[in-house]
């Protein structure tokens, strides 16, 4: 086998310019794909991180039917205290869970005593919420990065529109599920940067304040956001939690809970899917580039060496060995293109990372593009290139191996 590689490499070096051109084409393809995957992947994971770590959490658990009506923030679909307690017990037992945070979500009127507007609010336990969505504090652009009873953190658009600032006193008025209206004074403790997506323009108050405004006799919960220790285990955990909660049935014998990952809750998931689709098509383009260049070069190689093929066939070289000789040439070209492409691509990705390129997403500006080369991507791209190189060499190699020595020797 070593001798076949030796002959293949020497034959490639024999046509240096052609080999260099083909390898360069493959290299450019690999570099392009690698940089695209790194940049788009970095953008995708950064945005997912922004969404899950500053607002959504990785997974949310609701009472069955809540998500379908989530735009209305239906108080009648909150989890009752007993169900919420059960859910918390289950989550606390699971080793995959890093933190969880119960929330009461409701809509109300926000007044600065001169004018009023609508507001959507999350009632949370601050410590649990900050552990579940750790980037939430980084969104607080003004004021304390904390939330005490009697405090309200208001979204920046609302603060700007209503002319309120940190330290101002405001009133929140809400209607509970029985239709009873209640109000409570709050002190603005912080202003929250808005982000794209559902819940991105919500304000925050303490959960006990929320229960008080809504006149809850027992604490009812709209949702529980969950943060996992390992985000890569998201779908396994979703399945596991779904299985554990499936046994919890309501009085009608229907499931009490529904489990959703961030993907079901954020429209950004569709953008992430689009990025994946684009990545797939970029890979298809790479396959086409490699396939065409290798096949072209191998067809040329066979055509130019017909007499040599005739000679080695006449000497007694078996067709399988002739086939292997040409396939190994294609393989070596693919390996060379993949290795050089991986190296150049990695350097370019590193340079992009070091350049601290910024971009905007929705109302978020100045996000720094942090590109990384994923070893799995390197491996996948290299394997694709090498396999396609071998496949592209097969037809010319097969033709060479099936050549009649007598005809090949006559070739001029």
């Amino acid at each position, binding site marked *: 086998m070593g001798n076949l590689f030796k002959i293949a490499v020497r034959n490639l070096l024999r046509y240096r310019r052609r080999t260099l051109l083909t390898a360069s084409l493959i290299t450019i393809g690999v570099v392009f794909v690698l940089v695209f995957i790194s940049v788009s992947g970095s953008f995708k994971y950064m945005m997912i991180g922004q969404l899950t770590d500053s607002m959504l959490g990785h997974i949310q658990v609701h009472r069955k039917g809540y998500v379908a009506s989530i735009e209305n923030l239906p108080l009648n679909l909150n989890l009752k205290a007993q169900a919420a307690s059960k859910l918390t017990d289950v989550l606390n037992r699971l080793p995959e869970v890093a933190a969880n945070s119960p929330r009461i979500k409701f809509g109300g009127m926000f007044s600065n005593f001169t004018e009023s507007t609508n507001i959507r609010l999350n009632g949370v336990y601050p410590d649990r919420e900050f552990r579940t969505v750790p980037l939430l504090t980084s969104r607080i652009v003004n004021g304390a990065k904390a939330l005490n009873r009697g405090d309200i953190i208001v979204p920046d658009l609302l603060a700007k529109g209503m002319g309120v600032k940190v330290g101002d006193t405001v009133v929140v008025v809400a209607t509970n599920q029985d239709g009873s209206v209640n109000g409570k004074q709050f002190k603005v403790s912080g202003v929250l940067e808005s982000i794209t997506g559902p819940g991105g323009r919500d304000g925050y108050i303490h959960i006990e304040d929320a229960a008080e405004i809504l006149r809850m006799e027992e604490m009812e919960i709209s949702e529980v956001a969950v943060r996992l220790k390992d985000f890569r285990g998201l779908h396994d955990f979703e399945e596991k939690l779904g299985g554990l909660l499936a046994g919890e049935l309501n009085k009608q014998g229907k499931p009490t809970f529904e489990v959703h990952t961030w993907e079901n809750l954020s429209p950004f998931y569709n953008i992430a899917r689009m990025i994946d689709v684009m990545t797939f098509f970029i890979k298809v383009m790479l396959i086409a580039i490699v396939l065409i260049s290798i096949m072209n070069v191998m067809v040329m190689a066979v055509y130019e060496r017909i007499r040599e093929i005739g000679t080695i066939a*006449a000497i007694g070289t078996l067709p399988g060995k002739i086939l292997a000789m040409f396939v190994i040439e294609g393989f070596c070209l693919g390996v060379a293109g993949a290795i050089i492409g991986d190296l150049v691509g990695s350097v370019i990705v590193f340079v992009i990372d070091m350049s601290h390129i910024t971009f905007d997403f929705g109302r978020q500006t100045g996000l720094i593009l942090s590109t990384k080369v994923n070893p799995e991507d390197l491996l996948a791209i290299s394997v694709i290139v090498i396999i396609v190189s071998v496949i592209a060499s097969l037809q010319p190699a097969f033709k060479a191996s099936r050549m009649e020595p007598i005809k090949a020797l006559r070739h001029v």
Partner: protein
Amino acid sequence: MALIVAENIHKEYRTGEISIPALKGLRFEIEPAAFVSFVGPSGSGKTTLLNLIGCLDKPSKGKLTVADTDVTVLNRREGAVFRGKNIGFIFQDFNLLPVLTVYENIEYPLLMVLEVPPRERGARVLSILDAVGMTEHRDKYPDQISGGQKQRVAVARALVTNPRLVLADEPTANLDHKTAFMVIDLMKKMRDEFNTTFIFSTHDEKIVGQAETLYTLEDGELTVRTEKGGTGNGQPV
């Protein structure tokens, strides 16, 4: 027992509806360790006959036995195996592999065809390199040596597998006379040393005289067999 037995060999080439006879009912026998030449003008069928003997082609009719094997029934793979074990080839254009050195060209059939173990392979290549006087050029590539040297390497490559038969189609056509005689002398010397049967085709009158048995081909028919210092001189076949 004869190394090659040809019985009523016919070969026709078809071009569309037209059939062109290249060989017409050849009959002959060639003994082991013979030094035989087929001569004749261009188109007389010399190369066609050598191709048949070398299992590179099959006769349209007749039976051809080489080294006790009916070569007309061998398939592609069996033919390759048979050639690798029994036949060496010397080509008019030398046909050395340009990416291999002199040493590697000679080693090629041992390595890639017969898969001889490294130690034995090395010894055989060095021995044949010495026999053809190319030891000092062993690390050169074909484009770094002369035509005569290339043909010596080709002779060495043909002989390194210890074949029973070496076929040479116009082996001296691309060489000057002095080099051509040197190559023929080398082939004879190799025949004497290794007891290998040499069959070559030529139309060079001066080289023709070097053969011990001479068959003349005209229009696909063997017309005359001549044996140097033996029977059959100038007799019709």
